[in-house]
């Protein structure tokens, strides 16, 4: 399916005979930010995890840039995922964290050097590159987590509660970065409880209720 859009068709997921997601349909063009809202347990994280290929859907299908979600070898390199938890090694310095995750993505030494060079002037993290992650404030750690998710400049960005625990300054910086990414044609899906913030940032809000996508009001 030759299409730059993110196409989601009939996605469903079941946990122990309980339907967590039911028949999710939507499509998202490049250069847009879609927000996902909903109560706890509505299925926001599950939807992002399926699109990140951390979980496998029980039914339905998704495509992005014509690539099927089942083709992990092609899907994962173009996807960036920022989980709800920080998921970083607190013992590493921020610089080392970037180097580690860049190497984990298979970047060569030269590319890793370039990543660190860019990080030195990145307003999100340049002030505290030598701090260990465990010494970072909640907002700083969130920014590091976002930058790690952006490694490799993925075309599809999946962010699960990226602003949780972040202060106002950190949120502002992160939102500015997401805005820039949108203008560069990236496709961004963000789940959050904070409807106001999502409202400001998103082109469209997807509201989930008990695993079902409500029609736009």
């Amino acid at each position, binding site marked *: 399916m030759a299409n730059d859009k993110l196409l989601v068709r009939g996605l469903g997921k079941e946990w122990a005979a309980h339907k967590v997601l039911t028949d999710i349909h939507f499509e998202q063009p490049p250069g847009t930010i879609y927000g996902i809202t909903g109560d706890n347990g509505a299925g926001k994280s599950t939807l992002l*995890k399926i699109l*990140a*290929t*951390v*979980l*496998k859907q029980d039914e339905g299908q998704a495509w992005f840039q014509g690539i099927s979600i089942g083709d*992990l070898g092609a899907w*994962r390199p173009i*996807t960036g*995922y920022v*989980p*709800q*938890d*920080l*998921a*970083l*090694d607190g*013992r590493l310095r921020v610089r080392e964290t970037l180097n*580690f*995750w860049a*190497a*984990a*993505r*298979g*970047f*060569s030494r030269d590319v890793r050097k370039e990543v660190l060079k860019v990080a030195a002037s990145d307003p999100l993290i340049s002030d505290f590159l030598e701090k260990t992650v465990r010494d970072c404030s909640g907002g700083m750690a969130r920014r590091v987590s976002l930058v*790690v998710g952006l490694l490799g400049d993925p075309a599809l960005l999946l962010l699960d509660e990226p602003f949780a625990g972040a202060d106002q300054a950190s949120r502002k910086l992160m939102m500015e970065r997401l805005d820039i990414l949108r203008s560069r044609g990236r496709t961004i899906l963000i789940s959050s409880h904070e409807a106001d913030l999502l409202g400001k940032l998103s082109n469209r809000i997807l509201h989930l209720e008990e695993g079902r996508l409500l029609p736009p009001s």
Partner: protein
Amino acid sequence: MNGRAARWFRAFGAYLKGELRPSLVFLALTLAAVILLSALVSRMARQASEGGGDLPADFSVSASLVDEDQSFLGRLVVEYFQDMPYISQLHLDSYEKAMERLANDEVIVVLRLPPDLFEEARTGSQRDPIEFWLNPRMPAESGQIGIIVRQYSASFNYLYGSVFGYQKFYVDLGGDEDESWEKTTAHSFNALASYFGRNRYVATGDLLSFNLLLHVLSGLLLVFASLPAMGVLAATLRTARTPYEDRLLLSGGYGPLMLARLFSGFAWWLVLILPLLLFLKAGGLLTSILPAALLLLSVFLTASFLMLAVGRIRAPEVTLLQSGWFILFIFFLLGGVLYPPTLFPPWLDRAASLTPAYPVMEGIYRALYLKTSPGMEDLLLAARSLIPAGFLAFIFGRRRVS
């Protein structure tokens, strides 16, 4: 190397560094401790091996013989036992005195020849058996005697049938029945005694003498070789089903992560095992390091493969850690680390011989005892566990998207 393989190896390198980095200081401290321990153990083992230590280097038996038969057959048995190199002292006692010696741990075994043994043997209608009492407070030695007795018993049964037939034939030729019986019995028994006198079972057979220190040393090597597998389990459990693992999975895949954990465990294996092997080689107890190292590596890999699979079971972390320790305990128990397999009943010995640690322990002990190297047979026996364990790791040890 194509792009995909290069990315795979870079991810592996990053994961390995990530696994090893937090424990570098502890690794260095452990290395220093193991070097000290190795020097000490090697010195003690050398002394014991040369017979200079406090512990007896060889298996020896003191025994009491109660001869109620008082025939020439009894005298032949006494002569035969006195000639056995592994019987250090033989007492000719009454039944009561022999039991007293057994109770006082002066002897390990009491042998009683019943009255009329010779008369009954010559007619082939033996009623009273030859009786053995083994000292229950010396289980290792008693176990070995038990094995020797079983081996002798089987040979006796076979040979006795042949001798009895030969005796009948001799009587027909000689005429005088009593004289013929006596001569053929003496002749047969001499042949039998010289057959056993070659130490067929104790010097060139499978049963090695028991040396406590070398047994402990073999056990220590086996324990040290297996312990890093618990590190593999701990590393797997630390990230299992966490968002951190999700990120690792999405970044570099799970294959490099599994391999990095194995290599991290291998680094610990090197630190724990290599100094010991080097010191044993330097001390002349091992002729070459590589075969022993491969033997010990096989037990590490087998245990690690199992731990990779255990680490992915959906259960509380503490339960899985206990399961891991339990698996290692079974390895040690059936491998003969806690008790020599000679003490096992035959069915357990047969079952234990199929477990991964058994051939490793046996191969290492034999190599240390004979001051040689484990052979290809030991290596093949040890390596056979790798296939099912590797299969389990491949099927159950992988992080699956579900």
